[in-house]
């Protein structure tokens, strides 16, 4: 019989900090040497906590790029201990791929959660040498890329609009620059990124498929530093330092492309006369320690894509721009070691604007969305057995649909005057508990109640078959038009089989109240977000997943095998025959609704340490849709249905100066709709199409390689060169298939030919110089 106290656990908590800069370190691994099954990983603000039975232990702290540390620990009551780690070498560009920043996957509660290690983001080869977290995300199992060079992604059969993408808690509605070849995330400014592809914790809501939660870095609290890079098409600069020593710090990043300058000369003789196009963005964050218990964060993002176009000797002149803006103010207060709160006020904005002059007529098209959000998020650890989160979130949405107006030289104005901005309110309450039921069983129980209301001004039209409005109901400003609510239970369980293996299972229900429907191969800047309303029902999904997780050789290797099954309700597509032209009725009237289903298996194997690191991801999956009004009601493959998807990623540290990286991807060909027959109208070829998405393009595969050379340290300046080759063996991956015809109308010289369009069909080298001072 043990004494009563022996049955209790005590809690050790504190922060992991850089010994030199006092910058918090996220993702450091803390474990007990004597009890390897007990361990944890530090949070983004450096905080950690673990619980263990009373005893004397050796605390083992590991974090790549820093010296391992062992500390003696007497745990006979709850303790607080800050851990300061010393950098391993003078170089901060120590390379790691998926290093110890990751929690051992056997120990996390959630399923399908992946931390994206920023250092591996920076080492992997990418298009034009512009490193990008969204491209690293695509290399994970269960996540598909949106296409060649594209930052868009699809998770477990969900659409591109079903990913919640947040930057310091502000929703990013259009995460792409330059038609999605680059993301809005400047790697230099990012502290951490977490990808959750299912089983979202209850504090996240509003999207069906996944969460990509990106946090900006906190500035260095004790010295002024600069870093940046010069690449083929863009340059970056980040400055950080203290504002008030040990109290307040800032970080500021800027980036601009010069595609316009680089490619311009090659296109001088074409009609456009160059690439009149560029983008830029700024990130900034200020952190201020108000008291030992209070911290204030202010962060912001502002980015724009800007361009102009002149055609037909100046008869057509166009200017366009689009971009996101986000601002977050967050106050973190700790009531006690066990209880803390974050109160945040967030602005999120996306706007697209296009104006052109043609002849004497000036036309403008615009769309956008603006959110004001307030959130209160509590974290409470009443005992070592429970970790509770609860909170309240509210967002006010204003959605500007795609509207246009034209003005003639005589001053006549024509506009889509019936298409008006929509207003909506979204609120949610949530509660979750990570409950260590026994040493082996962890239950994660969550519930989220979400509420959505569309309010006026709004006019609901009824149309006849000729699309003429025959009736309408008008709602006044602020009047409630339609409300929706959803109870979203989230449940997962982890059962530890042994010190290095576990099984997990999860159930997730989620709702999505804002929708974006795109019939293009990629989301576009002028795609329109629309709210759930009297016309459109919320999308909802249910996901079940089970998995087996195992680590080998003290977490040197780890692997997982997960299975998921997901059903999606009220999925949206454009009705058949929809043409995206100017229209004086809400786009929502062009949607049809149906259901989706996705299921699959995901295998993940990763090597965490050593000179050679990397991972292999393989996904076998199927995604179908069934819409009464599409494909004559027959089930069809979703456009992003992909049977096989393979990613192989490796980096090799040859010596302290040279590091090599490579990635190989393979995917089943994209589903597309092809003409099966043809006929003539006015002597010219038209097509009769086969079933929706019934044709498969050739498979997609590509190898990218990179080499990084660390420069010799000169004084404080550290620098490195990254050389990369995108598409090493020049694979002509299909981007698009179509059937082309040419010839005289009614002529016997008419030719019909299938064509394939490839983007970047040859090896594309790039070089980037990065520095830190």
């Amino acid at each position: 019989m043990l004494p009563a106290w022996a049955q209790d656990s005590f809690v050790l908590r504190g922060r992991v900090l850089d010994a030199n800069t006092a910058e918090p370190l996220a993702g450091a691994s803390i474990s007990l040497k004597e009890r390897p099954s007990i361990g944890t990983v530090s949070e983004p603000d450096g905080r950690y906590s673990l619980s263990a039975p009373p005893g004397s232990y050796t605390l083992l702290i590991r974090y790549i790029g820093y010296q391992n540390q062992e500390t003696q620990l007497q745990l006979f009551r709850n303790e607080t201990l800050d851990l300061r780690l010393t950098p391993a070498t003078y170089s901060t560009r120590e390379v790691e791929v998926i290093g110890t920043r990751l929690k051992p996957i056997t120990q996390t509660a959630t399923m399908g959660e992946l931390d994206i290690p920023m250092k591996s983001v920076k080492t992997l080869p990418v298009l034009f040498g512009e490193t990008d977290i969204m491209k690293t995300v695509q290399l994970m199992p269960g996540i598909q890329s949106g296409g060649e060079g594209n930052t868009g992604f699809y998770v477990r059969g969900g659409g591109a609009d079903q990913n919640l993408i947040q930057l310091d808690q502000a929703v990013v509605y259009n995460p792409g620059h330059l038609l999605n070849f680059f993301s809005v995330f400047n790697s230099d400014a990012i502290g951490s990124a977490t990808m959750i592809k299912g089983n979202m914790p209850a504090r996240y809501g509003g999207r069906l498929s996944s969460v990509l939660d990106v946090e900006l870095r906190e500035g260095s609290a004790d010295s002024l530093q600069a870093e940046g890079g010069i690449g083929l098409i863009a340059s970056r600069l980040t400055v950080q330092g203290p504002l008030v020593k040990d109290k307040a710090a800032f970080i500021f990043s800027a980036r601009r492309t010069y595609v316009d300058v680089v490619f311009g000369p090659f296109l001088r003789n074409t009609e456009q006369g160059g690439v009149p196009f560029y983008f830029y963005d700024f990130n900034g964050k200020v952190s201020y320690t108000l008291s030992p218990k209070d911290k204030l964060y202010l962060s912001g993002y502002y980015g724009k894509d800007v361009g102009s176009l002149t055609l037909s000797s100046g008869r057509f002149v166009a200017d366009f721009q689009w971009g996101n803006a986000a601002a977050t103010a967050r106050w973190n207060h700790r009531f006690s070691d066990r209880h803390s709160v974050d109160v945040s006020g967030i602005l999120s904005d996306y706007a697209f604007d296009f104006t052109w002059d043609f002849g004497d007529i000036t036309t403008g098209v615009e769309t956008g969305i603006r959110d004001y959000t307030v959130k209160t998020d509590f974290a409470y650890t009443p005992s070592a057995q429970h970790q509770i989160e609860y909170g309240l979130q509210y967002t006010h949405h204003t959605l500007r649909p795609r509207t246009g107006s034209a003005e003639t030289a005589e001053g006549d104005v024509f506009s889509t005057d019936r298409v008006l901005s929509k207003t909506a309110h979204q609120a949610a309450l949530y509660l979750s508990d990570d409950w260590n039921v026994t040493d082996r069983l962890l239950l994660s129980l969550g519930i989220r109640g979400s509420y959505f209301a569309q309010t006026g001004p709004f006019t609901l039209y009824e149309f006849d078959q000729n699309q003429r409005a025959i009736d309408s109901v008008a709602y006044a400003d602020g009047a409630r038009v339609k409300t929706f609510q959803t109870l979203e239970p989230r449940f997962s369980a982890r059962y530890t089989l042994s010190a290095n293996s576990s099984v997990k299972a999860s159930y997730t229900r989620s709702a999505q109240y804002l929708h974006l429907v795109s019939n293009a191969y990629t989301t576009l800047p002028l795609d329109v977000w629309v709210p759930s309303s009297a016309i459109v029902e919320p999308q909802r999904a249910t996901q079940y997943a089970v998995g087996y997780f195992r680590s080998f050789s003290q977490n040197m290797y780890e692997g997982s095998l997960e299975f998921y099954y997901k059903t999606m309700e009220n999925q949206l597509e454009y009705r058949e025959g929809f043409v995206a032209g100017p229209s004086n009725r809400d786009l929502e009237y062009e949607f049809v609704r149906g259901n989706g289903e996705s299921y699959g298996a995901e295998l993940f194997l990763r090597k965490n340490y050593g000179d050679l690191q990397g991972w292999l991801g393989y996904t076998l999956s199927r995604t179908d849709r069934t819409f009464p009004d599409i494909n004559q009601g027959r089930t069809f493959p979703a456009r992003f249905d992909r049977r096989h998807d393979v990613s192989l990623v490796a980096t090799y540290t040859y010596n302290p100066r040279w590091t090599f990286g490579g990635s190989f991807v393979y995917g089943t060909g994209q589903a597309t709709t092809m003409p099966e027959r043809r006929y003539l109208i006015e002597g010219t070829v038209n097509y009769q199409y086969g079933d929706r998405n019934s044709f498969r393009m050739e498979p997609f595969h590509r190898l990218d390689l990179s080499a990084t050379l660390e420069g010799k340290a000169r004084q404080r300046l550290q620098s490195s060169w990254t050389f990369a080759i995108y598409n090493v063996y020049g694979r002509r991956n299909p981007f698009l298939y179509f059937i082309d015809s040419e010839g005289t109308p009614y002529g016997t010289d008419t030719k019909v030919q299938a064509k394939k369009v490839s983007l970047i069909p040859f090896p594309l080298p790039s070089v980037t110089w990065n520095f830190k001072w």
Partner: protein
Amino acid sequence: MRLRYFLLLLLLSSLVACEEDLTIDIPAGQEQLVVEGHIEQGAPPVVVLTRSRPVFAGFSPADIEASFVHGAQVVVSSGGKSYTLKEVPAAAFWPGLRRVVSEQFAIPEAQLTGNSSFIFYVYTSEELLGEVGKSYQLRISYEGRELTSSTTIPNLNPLQELFLQPHPDPEQDSLFILFYRYQDPDTLGNSVRYFTKRNSEPFYPGYFASVFNDELINGVRNLSFPLDRGESLGQEVDLDTYSYFGKGDTIVVRWAAVDIEHYRFWYTLENERNNNGSPIGSPNTTRSNINGGLGVWGGYGVTYHRIVVE
């Protein structure tokens, strides 16, 4: 001129893309009957009946011959009376029919004569002439297949006037932009299809967009807007001269009021053609008004307008 078209240009100019021929096997699909039929005021109904063929079937004279459907029963009814249309090969066209077919189908009249090798058949009736404001039902029976449709010849909706403006580049002083001035009736739903004829050429419909609708300009009093020159389809346009007329040209505009389903057919078909091969448009948008088949049965309420470039 579409926004999406320019974003595509932008995409392709920003990145290096390549297009290559591809050999693929495509299922043969199900044969459908295709109607291309029109009726306009003062003219007989003309129906061209063909069948859809495998996408890679050729265009030899034998292939073209094989695509025409012979021996179908084609009936047009209006105001309680029915007219059975008879099949006539191009070589047997009489002058009036020749003119109507040439204008409606953009075929040079010279090809529609007895000594031409041009393979073309229509179903028509000399007993029925279209009238403004009337509606016409089409019924086709062929080997157990039944196709039906209905169209109207809308009230005439002429434009007010044509005028010309010089090319924006003063050095291009032989090129002119054609403008039209238009007053829209107060009722919503007026739609127009236009064709232009330059000197002795046939009438060609607008190349990228031949139809307009008043959804956004209903009841407009005095709209003036450029009218692009129609060109023969099937070839790439020369962007230097596209849309312009030349000094000395005699221009005739065929301005045809169409009903909304007829409008929608051309609007969606032209959208599909313009977007073919584009990554940002969806294919397969053409909306036929034929039940049980493909194509169009469309009435035209036609007015002609003439201007000489001096």
